[in-house]
């Protein structure tokens, strides 16, 4: 291995130039797998959070089940899903989505619980219906905490997408897996660097989004 390293340069720029098309395709794949999984996770979490907030006793079983999902190693989960859905994007999205649930539900519930009681009392006293109060008071006020959850879920998902390379997907993980199989360092480095960069860009994007959506919380957020 030492020999191989000395024989070829760590970064083969020519390879990168030749594979730009593939890199762009994999970027798109990485991004869409992340977006679909986190988006789906958010919708499911919102539904489960509403249930948990409405019927408090359900919160503990919900976090127990989503917590259990969270502990299953990703490779194992992909494998478990193969007999059910096959070796495809559906498999990846189900697994990736299930990993976002615990984080998102916890932050949704904590964020909504954190809305000050007097604000809710005032909203009720002014004549808000329960539904209007939820969408116009509780969700906007919980937004900084919800987005904090989305940041963690997204960064985690960007990392996990690379593992879906074993399903023939993987986004940048495709490069990492190929590189590992062929001891080709450039491919590994490209996969790792771009994956980290994507996670960073999305994370910063959420910070920016939070500031945009919650100008009132600028000082605390």
């Amino acid at each position: 291995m030492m020999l191989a390293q000395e024989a070829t340069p760590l970064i083969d720029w020519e390879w990168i130039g030749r594979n730009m098309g593939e890199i762009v395709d994999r970027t798109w794949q990485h991004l869409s797998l992340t977006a679909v999984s986190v988006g789906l996770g958010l919708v499911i979490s919102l539904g489960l959070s509403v249930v948990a907030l409405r019927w408090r006793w359900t919160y503990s079983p919900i976090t127990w089940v989503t917590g259990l999902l969270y502990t299953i190693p990703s490779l194992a989960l992909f494998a478990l899903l193969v007999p059910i859905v096959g070796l495809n994007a559906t498999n990846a999205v189900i697994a990736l989505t299930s990993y976002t649930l615990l984080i998102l539900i916890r932050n949704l519930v904590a964020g909504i619980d954190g809305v000050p009681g007097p604000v809710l009392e005032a909203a009720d006293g002014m004549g808000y219906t329960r539904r209007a109060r939820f969408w116009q008071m509780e969700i906007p006020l919980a937004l900084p905490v919800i987005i904090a959850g989305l940041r963690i879920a997204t960064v985690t998902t960007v990392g996990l997408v690379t593992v879906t390379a074993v399903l023939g997907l993987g986004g940048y993980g495709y490069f990492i897996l190929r590189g590992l199989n062929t001891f080709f360092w450039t491919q590994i480095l490209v996969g790792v660097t771009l994956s980290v960069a994507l996670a960073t860009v999305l994370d910063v994007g959420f910070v920016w989004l939070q500031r945009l959506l919650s100008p009132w919380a600028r000082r605390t957020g």
Partner: protein
Amino acid sequence: MTRDSMIRLEKVSKVFPGAEMPAVADLDLDIGRGELVTLVGPSGCGKTTTLKMINRLIEPSSGTILIDGRDALALAPHELRRSIGYVIQQIGLFPHRTIGQNIATVPELLGWDSSRTEERVTELVEVVGLSKGMLNRYPSELSGGQQQRVGVARALAADPPVLLMDEPFGAVDPIVRKRLQQEFRVLQQRLGKTVVFVTHDVDEAILLGDRMAILNVGGVLEQYDRPEAILAEPANAFVDDFLGGERGLKRLALLTVGEADMRWGPVVDVKDDPEEARKAMSREQVDWVGLVDEGRLLGWVDGTQVDDTPLAELEPRPFLVTLSGESSLRSALDAVVTSHARVAMVVDDGIYKGMLDLEGIAEEITE
């Protein structure tokens, strides 16, 4: 009461689930149109529960609540609440909305068009004594006193006939509280809302209430009357005890100088002969004389200065404290005991009206 009823509670009770005792038991309360009624009592007396049953944040276990003749329990709660202003101690402004948006809350829920809402918001900002420049700020950028002014403006936004206030000035510091109380009294006189005002502060209840309802633990109404009447004649030992000491002083706080019998005292016109000044001093048995010029109070001079010099040529010293007819007798008493001459001079728009001394004030208490 001949006054027509705005809010009427009939045999209203509230028993919270799991509680042995009712929080409020068979309460009858009739609040007139345009009246400010304070609900006061020790903790556990059900005053807040009573208030919240009026806008149904708490549902009564039994009884009837009529608001302007309509059965409050027959309406959808959110519809009912949009027609009732609500102010709470913790203010509860919406942190994610600007001051303008906060004030516009109920008009927006009622679907007013934006120009009407905007006009109303601008009007209200001034009514509660804030500047228009604050409309685009967020609640966290305001002081507690300013926030509660916004709270009041928000409650008044849709011009509801009824205002419910739950210890609205309880969370601000004493100096701001006093100012908010005074301003609110003036505002209330102008707007003529029917106000139910919960407080645990007897002095606040006395100061603000047209009538005060004193509640005992379990929501028992011990006395319901004008503050002067309650202070003069507490219905029972509980009320007497709850009013605390200094009942006489508290009554004095409600009476104004203008209502009291004033004396002219040792006061002469600067154009009078100095002999008049000497006569006034010996008549009143004092060693000073007050000087007026065409009714305007100039000040006082020491008796030793009064010789044959025309009074107009003397240099009177100003009275440190003067009162107006609007001042309370309590502040008159304070002026008397702190002034060197043991009198309180009453001046309206610069014109001397008369003076009050200890004896005169004592007579007002015992009347």
